[in-house]
């Protein structure tokens, strides 16, 4: 090492210059929730419980999705269909309470693969789970998961149109 090098002053000066340059570069932080990160076009996130083309809920509360979930995020309670609810549910057993705990869900899609009725899908809606300060807000119930009726009506209309 030369004498000037062993002073380390030049090396320190160069280091300080590099740090100073970083002071003026663009910051990589994404200021959530004002800004959100971009997701790829094939991203599949938000779960949805599907209806068939007559508007009846497909889910029969068989529990295979809950069984296959590696994070144990799904819980449900089954009930028997009353005679005057024939237009609401496809089969005699339906899920009266169906909850997915979004904090546990890892979005793996195993529930989608396991469902025998093709009732639950991870959709391409790109809607992220909303941040909150309570744990209860992250337990999504049926009102957040079941496909809205007007969406089902539109699907049926599009499929049956010529």
């Amino acid at each position, binding site marked *: 090492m030369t004498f000037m090098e062993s002073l380390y002053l030049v090396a320190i000066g160069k280091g300080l210059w590099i740090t100073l340059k*970083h002071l003026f570069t663009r*910051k*990589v932080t994404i200021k959530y929730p004002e800004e959100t990160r971009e997701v790829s076009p094939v991203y599949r996130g938000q779960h949805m419980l599907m209806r068939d083309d007559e508007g009846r809920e497909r889910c029969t509360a068989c529990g295979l999705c809950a069984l296959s979930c590696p994070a144990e995020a799904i819980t449900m309670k089954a009930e028997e269909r009353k005679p005057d609810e024939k237009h609401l549910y496809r089969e005699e057993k339906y899920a009266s309470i169906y909850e997915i705990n979004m904090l546990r869900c890892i979005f793996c899609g195993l529930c989608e693969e396991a469902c025998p009725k093709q009732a639950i899908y991870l959709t391409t809606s790109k809607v992220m789970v909303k941040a909150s300060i309570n744990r209860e807000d992250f337990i999504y119930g049926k009102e957040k998961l079941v496909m809205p009726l007007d969406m089902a009506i539109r699907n049926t209309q599009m499929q049956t149109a010529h």
Partner: protein
Amino acid sequence: MDQSLIIEKSIFIVIIFAITMLFAMYETLAERKIAAWLQDRVGPNRAGKGGILQPLADGLKLFSKEEFFPNTPNRFLFIVGPAVSMITALMTSAVIPWGDKLHIFGRDVKLQATDINIGMLYVFGVLSVGVYGIMIGGWASNNKFSLMGAMRAASQMVSYEVPMSLAIIALVMMTQSLSLSDIAEGQHGWRWNVLYQPVGFLIFLVCSFAETNRTPFDLAECEAELIGGYHTEYSSMKMGFYLFAEYASMFISSAILAILYFGAYNYPGMDWVADTLGANAASLIGVGVLFAKICFFIFFYMWVRWTIPRFRYDQLMKLGWKVLIPLAIANIIVTGVVILLFDK
């Protein structure tokens, strides 16, 4: 002592205390923000607009934590440790000249709390006592790691006081006075001391990093090696006091650096301003200039912290005793020779 002098000095002291506290508080925010910007990220920006109220949030958090006493027989010393640190950090601000004379209310108000003629010696004395705060804290914690940290910090601070004082001796040889206000007045206009004593400035700068326990000399409190060093066992406001004392002493060190070497409240063109806008305006602009210099040095402290890695203990001791002291002595000799040669 006449009445108005007492009132004037009391008001001045309160103002200085408030400014020191304010600066130390916002230094905590500045540290986090500057650290973030240097690392390509944004610092705290949620508390208040742009994070301005973050220090208040931090203070509130520290106040609301549990007051914890470790299993130590020295409860009195445990409480006294941070108190000593804080007191010595604040005491130095008594002799700092914040500006030139202001002519208000029909009297000449000197912008300095006390103008003792051994100002520089007072500063060094208080700085030396500041070591006690860390040592007492480390000892009273009844904890091996705290003691190690405190020992290392104490030896570091003591061994870097020597080259600091030697660098100042060369400066005092030049300015013929130990009083801080004389040193400040001698740097009128462009004649800042850094131009006459560059090596002295460098030595003083390095030593002031060591005295305030700032990176690269912060092995007393580095988390990787010593958990928390001397402040491991502290919680709540006592911990807050230690951290605050570090920031306050950083502020005071920057002030001393600016005053001794960078021309205190002088700026080029001050005579022109005094002639056109009046002496009071020139003094006020001088105060602003001093604060700008202090802010620059505080930024420099933080800039260096996030650039340079930490010294190992033996490297630190070697630097202090085997490199800086010979350099400081050589500086004195050269200064003496130059003064003799150019003695008119």
